[in-house]
């Protein structure tokens, strides 16, 4: 049996929950790095999964 304990994410309540939901419903676009763009392109522009 693995010693690894799966980490729990605590439930948000009250002010933290309200703020999180507000941001989730109106996300602000993040700034993309060159590496973000390269990764996205690598995964969308060609077949990527094959057997080793």
């Amino acid at each position, binding site marked *: 049996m693995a010693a690894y304990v799966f980490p729990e994410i605590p439930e948000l309540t009250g002010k933290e929950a*309200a703020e999180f*939901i507000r941001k989730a419903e109106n996300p602000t676009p993040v*700034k993309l790095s060159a590496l*973000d763009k390269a990764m996205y392109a690598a*995964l969308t522009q060609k077949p990527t999964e094959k057997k080793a």
Partner: protein
Amino acid sequence: MIELDSGFSIRSLGESKLADFHCAGNLLKFFQNDAADTEEELIAKTYFLHHTDFQEPLVGFCVSNSAIRANKDVDMTLPDNVRHGAYPAVLIGKFATHTKFAGRDFGRRAIGFLKAWFVTQNKTGCRYLVADSVSESVGFYQKCGFERFPVQNSSETILMFFDLKAYEIAFGRSIGN
């Protein structure tokens, strides 16, 4: 194996030479002793970033399905369009760069892969990446665009999160959608 750009690839646990991977003590113990068991128990899947120039795995990480729950309260003043009280997420439980390759941006590349992977090739919905970070790695995750989760449940690690929707919107704008 998932081929990426410039000679990089992502390989599963079974496709990687674990004996060649070295990182800090507790994390090494996970990758070398526990990763296979967690896969067998269907708790987490472990992957490694590789490059054609190096025999060793460069970065190791494990991922699991998870969720962020935000309890909607009747007293909250929320916009009318609010629909969800929980958001699907993927949890990065363990993440380590091979000690030999520290400071070469391979960790950021692995995170970049995860962002793109869960937006473009995910088989289920996934809104957030959540990382269970050791305190020394908080700066790394912040550089990758993660924010500190509003509530923490451990004194040993710090939960960080990244909104994949915000990332997807940015791509939509960058390609003119």
